């Protein structure tokens, strides 16, 4: 007779339900849910071995209402566990194997992880304004558990899985423990403040760019950029922080740099590093991160090299497994493919990037001039406004597009720097990426940056190409050894093309009409795409781009594919109202 079994998957906070027909794994149980093949340790006739088992995945929240036919002891034990009891778990209930396939999660730990994560989800329901996916709830519980045991943790989930919301959920749970510090790329300070306000209204975020350190009572989250940390380390070191979060922590990969030294010297009860880079591919970087967050465990670089780096470089498979065992308690790294069942086919990641001082200056100058000259009225008003809007959007993309100074590209545009980081990361992670822009010259800058900084040749699909050139770019990109990045003009490439080798899409600038962006994103997300597509939008905070993005949120019904409909809306406003919209909002 066939019985149904439930195995808890701690890293994903899901139950895998499967059946056993008395001598072998049977067909998936007939219940609604996501079918997936999961590696589990099951009897194989001689003993117990890891094998790919067809399962249906169920969230713990839905488990109790489930009517499972012929439940076995494991299924019944988990039911009892969710009802608050402490049942004895048979191995089938916790048969999730380790990396080496030599062990399964210990019963006591599986039970504790489930109950802690369920309890934490309940606590956060009131305070965290976000619907957590199961693996995210687990990530937050894991951060609590790991920092309590070891003082630090590395959350290395792949980009798009929501490391920021997990970090905010973690900080919410520790709000009363004291002041917290978040260090991130300088262009993302405003984004962090914004996300904390949005997801964790119980926290008090303050963007800090140097100067006198503000009062920081418990519940404050001071958000600052890496350059500020480098320049103002002593001010930050004079305080005991309840937690410190290093976002994009691979920035600190070289322990001898000033910024890495400053980071290590900040006293904090809990130290968390967030990174989206595949940590196992860069062992020296991994050591730097471990030394940053758990220095008492990973103290001597030479020993780490001797123990792991050298044998792994020489091709030792046992050393790879030893490394996984050694870091597994303090590193949680989930890939999109591993949690795909919990993800929609498309995930959106909207980043608000800060302007640099140079961008702010030029943006304001352009508006001062426009205000002096006035927009006029009638058809002239529309033309002038369009010209000013175009210039403002160019400043948001890169100030050199207006000033003409394009010698050095980095460090001058918030969006450009954030995009450059994402591209470097995706190239490294072997994740082909599409970048859409409305502007030919912006596209050219991106191509140039990729050549100069990443050493890759990136094609540019734009309206100036003939049909044969267009076809060649698409065919090349879709081939297995195609280029890692493709830059596209939004207007030229918005429809028709199939570019499913990419599962990552970046919108470098914002369009009035969300349908246009969605159509472009669908170049990757269309028939033939088997992975979750990550769509990242870049918006310059406090600028007209935020207004444009805001129109998306209001589901503007515009269908026009040119700027004119959006411009017409603005042109109808009187000058006072118009300049109020265009002027930078004083933010963080």
């Amino acid at each position, binding site marked *: 007779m066939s019985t149904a079994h439930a195995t808890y998957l701690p890293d994903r906070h899901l139950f895998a339900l499967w059946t056993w027909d008395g001598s072998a794994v049977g067909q998936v149980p007939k219940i609604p849910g996501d079918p997936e093949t999961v590696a589990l340790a099951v009897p194989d006739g001689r003993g*117990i071995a890891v094998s790919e088992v067809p399962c249906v995945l169920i969230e713990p929240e839905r488990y109790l209402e489930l009517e499972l036919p012929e439940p076995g002891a494991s299924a019944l034990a988990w039911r009892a566990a969710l009802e608050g009891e402490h049942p004895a778990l048979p*191995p*089938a209930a916790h048969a999730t194997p380790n990396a080496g396939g030599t062990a399964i999660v*210990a019963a006591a730990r599986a039970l504790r992880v489930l109950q802690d994560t369920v309890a934490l989800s309940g606590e956060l329901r009131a305070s965290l304004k976000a619907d957590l996916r199961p693996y995210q709830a687990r990530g937050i519980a894991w951060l609590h558990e790991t920092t309590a045991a070891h003082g630090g943790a590395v959350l290395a989930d792949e980009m798009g899985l929501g490391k920021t919301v997990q970090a905010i959920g973690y900080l919410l749970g520790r709000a009363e423990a004291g002041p917290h510090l978040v260090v991130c790329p300088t262009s993302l300070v405003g984004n962090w403040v914004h996300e904390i306000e949005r997801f964790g209204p119980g926290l008090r975020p303050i963007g800090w760019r140097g100067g006198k350190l503000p009062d920081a009572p418990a519940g404050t989250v001071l958000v600052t950029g890496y350059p500020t940390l480098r320049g103002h380390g002593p001010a930050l070191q004079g305080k005991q922080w309840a937690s410190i979060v290093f976002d994009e922590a691979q920035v600190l990969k070289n322990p001898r740099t000033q910024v890495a030294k400053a980071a290590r010297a900040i006293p904090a009860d809990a130290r968390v590093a967030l990174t989206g880079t595949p940590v196992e591919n860069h062992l020296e970087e991994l050591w730097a991160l471990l030394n940053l967050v758990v220095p008492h465990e990973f103290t001597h670089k030479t020993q780490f090299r001797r123990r792991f780096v050298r044998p792994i470089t020489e091709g030792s498979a046992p050393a790879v497994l030893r490394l996984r065992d050694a870091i597994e308690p303090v590193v949680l790294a989930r890939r999109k493919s591993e949690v795909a069942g919990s993800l929609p086919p498309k995930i959106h990641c909207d980043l608000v990037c800060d302007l640099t001082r140079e961008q702010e200056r030029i943006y304001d100058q352009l508006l001062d001039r426009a205000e002096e000259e006035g927009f006029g009225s009638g058809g002239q008003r529309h033309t002038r406004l369009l010209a000013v809007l175009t210039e403002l959007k160019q400043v948001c993309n890169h100030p050199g597009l207006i000033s003409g100074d394009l010698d050095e590209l980095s460090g001058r545009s918030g969006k450009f720097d954030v995009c450059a980081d994402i591209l470097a990361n995706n190239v490294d992670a072997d994740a082909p990426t599409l970048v859409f822009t409305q502007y030919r010259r912006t596209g050219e800058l991106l191509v140039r940056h990729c050549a100069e900084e990443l050493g890759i040749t990136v094609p540019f699909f734009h309206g100036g190409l003939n049909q044969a050139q267009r076809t060649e770019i698409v065919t090349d990109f879709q081939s297995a050894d195609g280029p890692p990045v493709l830059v596209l003009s939004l207007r030229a490439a918005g429809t028709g093309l199939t570019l499913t080798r990419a599962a990552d899409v970046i919108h470098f600038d914002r369009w009035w009409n969300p349908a246009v962006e969605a159509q472009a994103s669908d170049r990757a997300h269309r028939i033939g795409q088997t992975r979750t597509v990550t769509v990242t939008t870049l918006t310059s905070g406090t600028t007209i781009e935020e207004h444009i993005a805001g129109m998306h949120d209001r589901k503007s019904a515009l269908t026009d594919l040119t700027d004119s409909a959006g411009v017409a809306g603005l042109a109808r406003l009187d000058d006072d109202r118009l300049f109020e919209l265009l002027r930078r909002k004083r933010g963080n």
Partner: protein
Amino acid sequence: MADNEFGYTSWGMDWVRLAQPLKVSKPEPLLPRAYSIARNNLVQTEIENTTVRATIHRGSEASVTYLELTPLSATTITAIAQLIPAEALTLTDEHRVALAEHGISIKPQFARTDCSCRARTERCVHMLATCYALARRVDETPWLALDLQGYRTGGTAPSETGEARPARWTSIDTLDPATYFGVTAG
């Protein structure tokens, strides 16, 4: 032979010192060969609690060496548990120093050694090579240095001083297919 091949942690160095003690009355002619055997990964070690079974194949010859270590006393285990947190992932050289400062000796002591070869001495080339091989394994996983002396494996868990280290994983080898699904198979 002062290099970082064996004994690059102070825990591994204890095992190197078993092969090449600091104070020697006469030079040990077998050491270079033993070193070379271990360096070329010719020693297969199987560890069960405080006993080690080492197999060495060289050409047509095969030998089996047994080592059994003297378990730490319950007093020593308790004292160690007060200095090394149960959740420590890796034993570091700093832990080793802390133990030494508290006068706790954790140098491995043999309870018994035996080798299948015909050498008349206990310190045959196989025993020496096994010491090097264990130095390597201890360097890789320093907890093994204490576990080989029964710290977490000998049944005298440090219970008086707080929680024992909670196990994160259960070895598949210890699972019984008959009870995999519950008390009764099905």
